[in-house]
């Protein structure tokens, strides 16, 4: 029983990490039709900015409120970089899919190279607040607090995103834009502002994943964002392009599947099963769990 609970909660922790990266990716793709391969860079920026702030930013630190401030700095850095990427590199290329892919792939490679050049290629120990190093006993299982923190953060982000989509003017524009971007424009709305906003939101969520992922893995390295991005893309496709709720369901499915198969099967079999799940979804329900709807 304890093993099942542990696997479930660590699987959900992994799912939370995937969701934080995938939610922004899904909104960006759903609204702006941009397949953003640079999204992993925002995670890297968030992780490194948090790591840097914990040691250098006045008031910030590796524990308690100091770490909260460091993580907030990381989230803001991720959002700002995402906005700049949209404004400078993506905006001139809307409706030019191939160029977008080339630019975002190039940017992700250049971003990793920049992080390596600045802080080296080796993983750096990440500041871990005292509480996150411990475990909490739940139904006989000793669950790492870092995983619980990830789950809590993902639930808060999911609730915040749904509230934003449901109750705000820009949320309304994004939901409509995911359905029919051209018609939003034909109602007199400058949809490009919404593009910038979803990039910022996606960048912030990915940066939060970077900060909390640093705690979860205990270290930060330049290539971390890229490896998580692959699973985030799978989550987006399974969940349905543009759907935050779909991304949440898919992240849970992928996280749990990976964790259970890796434990009960051979190591690495979980990844293969995830790809198999993707293939099954694409064959049986190509639009994903939720279809192209920015659910609110």
């Amino acid at each position: 029983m304890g093993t099942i609970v542990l696997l479930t909660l660590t699987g959900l922790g992994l799912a939370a990490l995937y969701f934080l990266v995938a939610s922004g990716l899904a909104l960006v793709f759903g609204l702006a039709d941009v397949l953003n391969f640079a999204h992993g860079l925002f995670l890297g920026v968030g992780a490194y900015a948090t790591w840097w702030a914990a040691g250098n930013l006045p008031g910030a630190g590796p524990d308690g409120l100091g770490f909260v401030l460091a993580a907030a700095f990381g989230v803001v850095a991720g959002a700002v970089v995402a906005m700049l990427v949209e404004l400078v590199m993506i905006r001139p290329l809307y409706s030019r899919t191939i160029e977008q892919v080339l630019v975002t792939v190039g940017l992700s490679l250049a971003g990793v190279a920049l992080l390596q050049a600045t802080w080296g290629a080796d993983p750096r120990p990440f500041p871990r607040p005292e509480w996150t190093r411990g475990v909490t006993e739940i139904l006989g299982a000793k669950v790492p607090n870092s995983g619980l923190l990830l789950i809590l953060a993902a639930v808060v982000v999911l609730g915040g995103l749904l509230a934003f989509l449901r109750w705000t003017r820009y949320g309304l524009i994004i939901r409509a834009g995911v359905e029919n971007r051209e018609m939003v424009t034909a109602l007199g709305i400058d949809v490009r502002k919404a593009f910038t906003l979803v990039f910022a939101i996606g960048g912030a969520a990915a940066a939060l994943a970077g900060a909390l992922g640093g705690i979860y893995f205990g270290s930060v390295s330049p290539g971390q964002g890229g490896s998580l991005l692959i699973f985030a893309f799978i989550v987006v496709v399974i969940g349905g392009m543009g759907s935050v709720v779909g991304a949440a369901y898919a992240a849970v499915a992928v996280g749990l599947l990976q964790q259970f198969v890796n434990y009960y099967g051979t190591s690495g079999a979980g990844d293969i099963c995830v790809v198999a799940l993707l293939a099954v979804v694409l064959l049986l329900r190509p639009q994903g769990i939720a279809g192209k709807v920015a659910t609110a």
Partner: protein
Amino acid sequence: MTVEPVLTVEDLSVRIAGLHILQGVSFTVAPTGVTVLLGRNGVGKTTTLRAVLGLTPTQGEVRGTVRMGARSLVDQPTHRLVRDGLGYVPEDRCVFAGLTVTENLRLAERRGSVPAYDRVYELFPELDRRGRQRAGSLSGGQQQMLAIGRVLLNDNRLLLVDEPTKGLAPKVVTEVAEVLERVAAAVPVLLVEQNLAVVRRLATDAVVLAAGRVAWTGPARDLLLETALTKSLLGVGSVEVHS
């Protein structure tokens, strides 16, 4: 005294994916009444409306002049044209299926102007009653009402309306025509319409397109009275009456 047109289209050419869809189209829209854009399927009626509104695909090429009053509309972003008073009711309604009726209307609100919900609900009381219903679950007629209501939430200088009666039941066609008649009393309309009964009821002027060019232009009555002309230009011999 010469009446200034509300819209002037001169030598408009549109090329999309190698197809020369519009080949030098020129016409004007009077500041009152309904100017109807007619022609057989595929002659470029919808392309004309979309070009006026700046909705030609990015890979398309638009040449020519489009002016609303003295102001050139070419190369202006669509959202700005709409904010400046160019209302658009697209073909196939294009309501946001996943949003409620109220959310569809709220989306059309413009900053700096008071939305005319009274006007919309007076014309379409059904929209008020169905405010919480998802637009995707409305009937075709109700969706058309929503698409028109969305535009009427704001004051416009010109309405571009694309086939508003397409696919609707005869009774609903009559209702839509009545609404457009009332709307046209206050704001000029450039209408694409295939139903000649509706055209006869609403149109003051007509522009007929054929193979990407203007084949005929003049008072709508003159066109509709000439059976031979309508047959040669539109492929119909008589005006069918639904209303």
